[in-house]
């Protein structure tokens, strides 16, 4: 009976955490659309949305409401089951990754030690890769079932792009994993926290700058963001794989892109920028005087500001550079990034062996 009680509490705790993180990601994704429009505007010397509510803050709500009220059109010649499944899959895979990201250290509620991570699986990064590669099915199924040649071309492009860049992404991470020796996201963060200057010198980006660069470029490609937004190239493919979609199904595709951006930013911050580590502060000594909960909260704020920076970077790059041509994309992926990642891996291996001798 005693056992049962504890398990129920654990399930409740995890359910609350899952609900919280999903709501949080959705709200962030919502406001990322707003931020994207604002950033685009200020970079083009415009003002951006400012009509709905103060500073246009209600704009994402208005957009969502509009999408809900739009007519739902399912093309006659489409495969209806797959057509509905596509956006759902895109959304689900976008959300799934958040399970292994440590959003903070642990907090204490009613005497229970609650970890701010849904699942500390020991193969966290592998799980991320698995889910990310599932993400292409949303695009693939949506493009295929639309029964439209543009959608199909976009789907094929998207699939080959994601598969190509996953290779370089994985290879760039192998060098990182050789250093950390663990696939668990939490362990990786804790290792970074133990560096000098309150953890700042432990950040992996200082030891793996090339790996970080390759990883970042691949993340851009995986999220289908400019300069790699070929699956939805407006001018050549007419919005690509979600061309036949309308109403909230289109909304799901667009939304999934922003959730993906958010989660990818979280992964990049966790792997390379110390996750919930607060720079220049030693969390352990701070926790003694301020208590665990406040430090955990501050840690979350720290992680969140890193995420916001990367979200801004996504937008910044999008409104700066044009799209790659398809052959250039493949050229960059296969002939530049993969050899670079391999070289990075070998150099890291040599240095590790040298230091351990």
């Amino acid at each position, binding site marked *: 009976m005693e056992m049962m009680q504890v398990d129920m509490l654990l399930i409740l705790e995890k359910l609350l955490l899952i609900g919280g993180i999903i709501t949080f990601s959705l709200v962030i994704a919502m406001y990322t659309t707003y931020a994207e429009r604002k950033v685009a505007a*200020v*970079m083009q*010397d415009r*003002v951006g949305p400012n009509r709905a509510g103060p500073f246009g803050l209600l704009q994402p709500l208005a957009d969502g409401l509009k999408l809900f009220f739009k007519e739902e059109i399912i093309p006659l010649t489409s495969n209806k089951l797959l057509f509905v499944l596509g956006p759902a899959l895109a959304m689900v895979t976008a959300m799934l990754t958040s399970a292994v990201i440590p959003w903070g250290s642990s907090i204490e509620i009613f005497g229970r030690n609650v970890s701010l991570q849904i699942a500390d699986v020991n193969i966290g990064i592998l799980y991320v890769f698995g889910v990310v590669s599932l993400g292409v099915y949303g695009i693939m199924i949506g493009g295929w079932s639309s029964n439209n040649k543009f959608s199909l071309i976009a789907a094929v492009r998207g699939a080959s792009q994601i598969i190509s860049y996953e290779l370089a992404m994985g290879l760039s991470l192998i060098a990182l994993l050789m250093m950390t020796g663990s696939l668990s996201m939490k362990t990786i963060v804790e290792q970074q926290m133990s560096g000098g200057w309150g953890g700042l010198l432990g950040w992996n980006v200082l030891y793996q700058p090339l790996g970080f660069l390759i990883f970042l470029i691949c993340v851009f490609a995986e999220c289908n963001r400019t300069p790699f937004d070929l699956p939805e190239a407006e001018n050549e493919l007419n919005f690509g794989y979600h061309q036949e979609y309308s109403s909230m199904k289109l909304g799901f595709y667009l939304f999934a892109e922003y959730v993906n951006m958010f989660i990818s930013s979280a992964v990049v911050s966790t792997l390379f920028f110390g996750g919930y580590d607060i720079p220049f502060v030693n969390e352990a000594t701070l926790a003694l005087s301020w208590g665990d909960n406040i430090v955990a909260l501050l840690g979350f704020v720290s992680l969140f500001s890193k995420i916001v920076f990367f979200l801004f970077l996504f937008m910044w790059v999008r409104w700066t550079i044009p799209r790659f041509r398809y052959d250039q994309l493949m050229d960059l992926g296969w002939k530049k990034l993969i050899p670079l990642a391999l070289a990075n891996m070998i150099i890291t291996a040599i240095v590790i062996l040298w230091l351990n001798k």
Partner: protein
Amino acid sequence: MASLTNRVKVLEQQPLSFMERLYLPAIFKGMAITFSHIFKKKATIRYPEEKRPFSPVFRGLHVLNRDEEGRENCTACGLCAVACPAEAITMEAAERQKNEEHLYREEKYAAKYEINMLRCIFCGLCEEACPKDAIYLSETFAPANFTRKGFIYSKDELLIPHPINDKEAYEAAKVSRVEKLKK
């Protein structure tokens, strides 16, 4: 091949240097440019709250003029309607009655005066044709409307406010017109 003019400039297509082939420095340069634009002055004019100042010679909505005592200048001679290339102006004349001297300046006046703003091309020929200084083009433009009928402006919409009964509105409407007269 010999060039026809001597102005041909031969461009040497150099292969990209190593730095250029890295591609990243160029991206950073571009990102610096877009970042600097965040702090630039915005070109947007937030329309209903802010309005772009018009030039004093701007030709906008028409105004039917009154004299200092508030009498309508228009005598319904029809010259503006004749001058109008878009045939946007229609009017009906009427004779002034005994007790109407305070309303109309001369014996004849326009009982009905309509301008179709959908036809009007805002050329200002009516203003030039008018011998009585009765019609002017102001510095506002016709606001949007839901019906075509709403764009046919009748006399009460065109007339300038009364200079004695509604002095403030008259002064406000006059300013732009007076500035135009100085030109």
